[in-house]
């Protein structure tokens, strides 16, 4: 039974996995070639990797990011596509009547997606590091160290897991691809605001933790892993109750509309409140988010009323 569902999910998504892998490696090659071109313009001896790679901290320089930012985007895309594609291509209909329990389908799809992400990350890193390894001229040093690599990979993988989970969960509850992408881009960008709040609190001693750079990185990684676990488990519950009559609507679970609205308004107002300079801007952000959120989530009803009103006026 498990073997069959594994084969089914693999057959369905193997093209996506291969495409994402190829694209990721292509970007790694392109980045390396650009870096190599830049390095060839330099004179004398040069160390590509700085000494800080020996510390238990995330290593990230423009010439050599130990865990490329691109890999977070790959995870972001993979999570989104895996869940959204089955909805938009009506493959969910086939899965739900396939005789495999929904839980089995959900967790199989998830572990295949995560495994694919891990393979893509490994291959991309291998390509990225391999190109430097074989192409760098003798005058440019390329010396790696485990502390920096392990920290960077762990932190990067946790971030990728978080990105994957965030998009996976969003694609499970949002039924319109365009709106889903807009929502996810908006939310992903807003995360910098959340990070800014945390940094502000930490630097002011508001948290009372006095964390080092490495500790902040591991705390951040742990938060991502925890968030991912919560989203995966919550997603499993929702997947069990997913009813396809809401396909094409913004929210596939109408019962989530009010909670999503409240969270959206509180989240946007909170970010602006912490990062803003005065009360006035907080009030404005509250009013704008409340109005925009209401329109966004209830717009089919609002638009229907609008069209009725307009046709009555014209008629």
């Amino acid at each position, binding site marked *: 039974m498990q073997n069959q*569902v594994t084969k*089914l999910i693999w057959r369905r998504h193997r093209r996506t996995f291969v495409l994402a892998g190829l694209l990721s490696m292509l970007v790694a090659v392109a980045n390396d070639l650009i870096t190599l071109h830049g390095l060839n313009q330099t004179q004398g001896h040069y160390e590509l990797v700085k000494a800080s790679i020996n510390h238990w901290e995330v290593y990230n320089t423009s010439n050599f990011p130990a865990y490329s930012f691109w890999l977070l985007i790959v995870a972001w895309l993979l999570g989104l596509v895996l869940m959204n594609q089955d909805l938009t291509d009506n493959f969910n209909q086939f899965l739900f009547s396939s005789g495999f329990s929904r839980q089995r389908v959900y967790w199989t799809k998830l572990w295949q997606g995560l495994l694919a992400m891990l393979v893509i990350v490994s291959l991309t890193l291998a390509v990225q590091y391999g190109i430097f390894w074989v192409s760098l001229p003798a005058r440019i040093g390329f010396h790696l160290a485990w502390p920096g690599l392990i920290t960077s990979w762990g932190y990067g993988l946790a971030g990728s897991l978080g990105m994957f989970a965030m998009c996976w969960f969003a694609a499970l509850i949002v039924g319109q691809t365009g709106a889903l992408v807009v929502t996810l881009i908006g939310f992903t960008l807003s995360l910098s605001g959340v990070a800014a709040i945390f940094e502000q609190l930490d630097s002011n001693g508001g948290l009372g933790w006095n964390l080092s750079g490495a500790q902040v990185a591991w705390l951040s990684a742990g938060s991502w892993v925890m968030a991912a676990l919560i989203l995966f488990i919550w997603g499993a519950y929702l997947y069990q109750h997913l009813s396809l009559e809401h396909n094409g609507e913004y929210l596939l679970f109408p019962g989530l509309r009010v909670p999503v609205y409240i969270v959206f308004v509180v989240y946007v107002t909170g970010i602006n409140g912490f990062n803003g300079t005065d009360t006035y801007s907080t009030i404005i952000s509250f009013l704008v988010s409340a109005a925009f959120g209401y329109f966004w989530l209830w717009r089919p009803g609002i638009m229907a009323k609008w069209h009725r009103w307009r046709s009555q006026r014209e008629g």
Partner: protein
Amino acid sequence: MTLQVKQLSKQINKHQIISDVTFNWAPGEIIGLVGRNGVGKTTLFRTMVNHYVADAGQVLVDDHPIQQAPTRQREIFFLDTQYNFLSNYSLKELPDFYSLVYPKFDRQRYGELLRHFDLNAGDQYRRLSKGMRAMVNIILALTSNATYLILDEPFDGLDVIVRENIATMVIDEVADQRKGFLISSHDLNELDGLSDRVLLLKDSQLAHDYNLEAIRETAKKIQLVLPDKTIPAVLKEHSHLIRVSGRVLVVVITDYTDAIDQQLRALHPVLLEELPLTLEDLFRANLAHDTGYQLLK
């Protein structure tokens, strides 16, 4: 072996689409599901196969609820003609998916049927004509070798040749009593000669469950040419008028007895002959007053 639909209900956007639908279905039966457009036929199918989560009720295969024993769902085949994943694949790729879900999927027969109906295995499903898609859908249904096959408006918009092909395949398939079909239609003529039992869906409920053989045993469709234009009392009392054209009457008498026969002959009609009784006649005679069948047309 039997499939039971028990008190199945589904609400969409606060509208009750199907309510308390209950029926049994055994292999060997070809059941017609009729009702007006939008009455909930497709919703019933989608709820039966778990595309929609039912608000109440359950579907049981051999007394096992499919919600608790999902593998039993493999005994049911339903291909949603509106929302399916086939468009992205070529015909030769489809068995790769179906054989993983239906353990008895017959790849060899699938290939043979494609060739028989001049369908190219390399063609993309989305590039096929409506009739070709309908043929592929029915081929997938038959070769799945599931016990209970649900076909949603399989004849809709198809030419007579394709319709006949599909009808013939359906009839051949139930001959050994191992498979059953549930076929929806809003046009009764399509089901004529195919279904032996008809379910009528009306106002979100199963209004009637008719065994056509039992009805046909007692009902007759008669064409009469009378000496004058007056409609005799026996017809007013016992028949349903299908057509009146001057002195020519076509009537359906649902409970035809010797006494009625004698009364009709006593009228000394110029012509009294029996006509083939169609499903549409039966529904006109039985249901026109209380089921809104006239609205089907």
